[in-house]
């Protein structure tokens, strides 16, 4: 069999997830199966890439991992029936003005402030890194949604907003300094 054949790649992906599944089903810990599982998936990355080129190969390896795992999840579904208490039907309650204000404020922070800070931080950090210019542009554009999303999480998770807001605004200001100076 050709080492970079689609069958082998598919088998490695399926085998890798299969080992993880087998480890999951065992009541005791199964480090060997887990190691084989992740190892198989790593090798499948190589074989998919050898078969289709690195760009297509990595994409196919990741999608194959998801599909095989979902298939196994479906196969292992356990059926049971719960008895629920009937829920009372209520008219839609109007939110309190204070609650509405709090959520609007949080939305502003998670969307607008996080976006602005992410843009300045993302570009500012790359300003000080030695990279080819065209690559810097793309890395900053790719980092942007990740930093934005991360900041949104942070704001939404915080019990007191002052700390994350102050820290991120300071980081954004440093990024702005790096950009404009």
């Amino acid at each position: 069999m050709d080492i970079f054949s689609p069958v082998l790649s598919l088998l490695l992906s399926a085998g890798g997830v299969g080992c993880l599944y087998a480890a999951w089903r065992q009541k005791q810990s199964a480090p060997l199966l887990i190691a084989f599982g992740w190892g198989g998936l790593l090798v499948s990355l190589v074989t998919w890439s050898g078969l289709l080129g690195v760009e297509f190969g990595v994409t196919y390896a990741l999608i194959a991992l998801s599909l095989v795992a979902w298939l196994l999840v479906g196969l292992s579904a356990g059926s049971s029936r719960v008895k629920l208490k009937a829920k009372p039907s209520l008219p839609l309650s109007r939110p309190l003005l204070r609650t509405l204000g709090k959520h609007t404020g949080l939305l502003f922070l998670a969307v607008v402030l996080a976006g602005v800070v992410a843009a300045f931080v993302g570009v500012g950090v790359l300003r000080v890194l030695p990279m080819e210019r065209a690559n810097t542009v793309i890395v900053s554009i790719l980092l942007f949604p990740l930093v934005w999303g991360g900041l949104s999480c942070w704001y939404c998770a915080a019990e007191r907003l002052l700390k994350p807001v102050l820290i991120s605004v300071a980081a954004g200001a440093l990024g702005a300094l790096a950009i404009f100076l």
Partner: protein
Amino acid sequence: MKQLLSASLVKKSLASHSWLGLCVGALMYLVCLSGTLAVFHHEWERWEQPNIEEGVTLASEQLQQAYAEAAQRMGEVHDIVISLPVEDNPRTVISADGQGWFVNADGSLGESINHGWTELVADLHLYLHLPHSWGMIVVSILGALLCGLIISGVLAHPGLFRDAFSLRADGARLEQVDIHNRLSVWGAPFHLMIAITGAFFGLAQFTGLLVAMAFYDGDSEAMLEELYGGHPHVEQSASVAQVSKALAQMPQIAPQATPFYITVEHPGEDDQFMLVGARHPERLIYAEQYRFTADGEYIDHVGFSDGAAGQQFIFSVYRIHFGHFGGLTTKILFLIAGLALTIVSVTGINIWLHKRKHRDAINNLWAALVWGAPLALVILAIVDLYAGVASVGLYWVLTVACMAAAQWRDDEVSTRFGLQCLTSVALVLLVLSHGLQFGWLTNPAANSINLSFIVTALLLLGWGRFSRRRAQGTRLSEETVAQAGRA
């Protein structure tokens, strides 16, 4: 994982995940649903106009003749695009500024392009039917917030490995939780890729401004030139670009590449030039662009295939996001993965609804939005077949009508079942209408779509009946519990 994350962090992450999810759940659902459909947009186009001649490779003179006629008809436009036949869209089309024609085998211009329904779906995905400049930004922000949801979702899930394959099909909250978690955890690499590339389309312009300030002394033009290639300096006299001459040279210039479009920039003007877009094997880049003068003299290539990694990536985003590589297999894989993300959006809100101690209008409206959106799209397709109109207004009127009916009925289980049945019936009607209008067997794409509509209708009906029966079972349990309580 349990040792790594403190209980407090998990709790806060879960709160953050819930809050963000509730904020964007409905919009995310519409974007994911329409995006899943948009993976097949070439096939939808072929389904909308199934009687166009396919698989015809035009001779050089005929292509030149078609271009000359189209350029004359179009008048003054910024650019003209000639789409050459490819595997998933084997038709020659010449278009500019929203108008365009298919090219017949003899080189004459044929039927006008009319892809109203496909454009409606694409507009929902790209702009949520908002004005384009705003809509693109809103959708891209959803991409950034999806990154946030993925991060908070992972942090909120201490039993990531413990529950890796568990699915408790109890017909209630735990089932929704498990479906949500299993689809999102195992699909995380795909979802992250979709989120980042999705955010790129609308937000690149904003980061681009900052990048230009940081690295190009504020000169955005210089940045765009470096990334996309600037306008070449051309001296020429030709008034009609020699598209065939340029295309004929491609086997010598790039023998491994397959040309699939030609763009004539500034047609008829002194500075006009041509870009021949060609696909390279085993590469994710959308195309390498080969530049020619209007006289058909080769200038250079832009460098998407061999330039800086960043430049190569920027021209790969489209194909990665929409799964337009690797043919039909990849599209089917993207359909499955896209459906998974759509289901994640729905189950996220369902979990929240299950958690509440009461039910209200939100339960009704959510069921109507989830099951009304596909119904509205199918009805729009039928209307478009008969009236040639795929109206955004009508789409939203239908969606709102579904919501109003659901609120009037005040029972999300029967609303869901009713909308599923209506969608099944509408799908069958759509196939019948299409067959009556265009014939029962047309091109392979249209035939496959019609067949998939029938299969979807049957699956939907089967699933609807199954889930209603299950819900009624739960209701019986509820009554039993109530009786037991009274006793």
